[in-house]
């Protein structure tokens, strides 16, 4: 599916994967996240194949499926992920308020708009201590203010020595030092 993909990501770096629809962005992300196996080649984490390293414990993956259960409220959703990630229970209300969801904490997510559901899904980024974020189209359905907010969060994460891999069709509005761009071409 892919040909001559070679990339390296250091701490503090952001990698943006671009390309037309069907170019294989999401498939590449799934391989990088360890959800799919490459036919050839390898994915390394700190010079170790990802299967033999502590890679999964350092990974926060949010795919194009939001992971938000429509019947649960935003707060219940966060509660589950906090416990699942083994984090100290942070103040869910505060995180949701940061994301502009104040007052919507306890209504089922199915009643929220697509953009608000996306915000609930991305709220995990405010709770996780994990180093590598792999995000598939994180800006989908978000409004301008949320996109700015998310990019500020990216900057904060990168400055703490984290790394981010993301796919997006929108150009990033904020400047990230040492950002890399990988453009996938669609070929028959």
């Amino acid at each position, binding site marked *: 599916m892919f040909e001559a993909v070679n990339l390296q990501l250091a701490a503090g770096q952001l990698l943006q994967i671009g390309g037309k629809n069907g170019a294989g962005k999401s498939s590449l992300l799934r391989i990088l996240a360890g959800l799919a196996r490459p036919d050839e080649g390898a994915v390394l984490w700190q010079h170790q194949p990802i299967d033999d390293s502590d890679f999964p414990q350092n990974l926060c993956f949010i795919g194009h499926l939001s992971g938000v259960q429509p019947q649960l409220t935003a707060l219940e959703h966060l509660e589950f992920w906090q*416990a699942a990630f083994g984090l100290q229970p942070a103040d869910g209300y505060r995180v949701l308020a940061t994301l502009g969801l104040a007052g919507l904490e306890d209504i089922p997510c199915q009643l929220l708009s697509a953009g608000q559901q996306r915000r609930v899904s991305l709220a995990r980024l405010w709770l996780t201590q994990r180093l590598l974020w*792999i995000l598939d189209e994180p800006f989908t359905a978000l409004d301008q203010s949320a996109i700015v907010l998310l990019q500020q969060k990216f900057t904060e994460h990168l400055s703490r020595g984290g790394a981010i891999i993301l796919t997006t069709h929108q150009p990033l509005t904020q400047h990230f030092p040492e950002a890399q761009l990988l453009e996938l071409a669609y070929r028959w």
Partner: protein
Amino acid sequence: MVMFKAAFVREWRLLARQKADWLNPLMFFLIVLTLFPLGIGAKPNLLAEIAPGIIWIAALLSVLLGAERLFKDDFRQGVLEQLVAADEPMLFYVLAKIISSWCSTALPLLLISPLIALLLGLDATAWLAVLLTLLLGTPLLNLLAALGAALTLSADKGGILLALLILPLYIPLLIFASAAVDNASLGLDYSGQLAVLSAMLCLALALVPLAVLKALKLNVG
């Protein structure tokens, strides 16, 4: 353990909000059992004779009815994908799912079993045997149903496939459970059958959650 509690609480919240998920199988069970006396007519002896088989077939069909939903939503919404990618302790998630599915689909069957006994003209000894076999057998039903649900997760119309896959595995359970109730209604000892049921349950408890885990990972990958 944290994961177990979180997944368990989450599952109960979902069950509380999607009552159809556990009420429908229960209604199905009751309706099937009501149809038999109506269909067979006023033959109480015949009814009591075939009652063990009827109860068990209705029970395993109703568990099967509730099985498909078990992992489907989490798969569709991407929850499973995120759990697998982050290498969360998924075994606890699987256990929480199976235990809450037993509580929601099988426990109500145990609770209404006295009513069923009355409906089918079973006496107290036979009812006790029905209760005991259901107690030992339904967890096994739920375990195997969870395995089927996990295996058919990414199949589009998984429901029929699930039934075809899992129903044959229920045969030994059906044989021993109805034999136990038969013996009980004849006043014979049925501890042997109960012991076989317990052994099957122990084996499934040890192996099935691991198999479910593997199947989930295969489907996500």
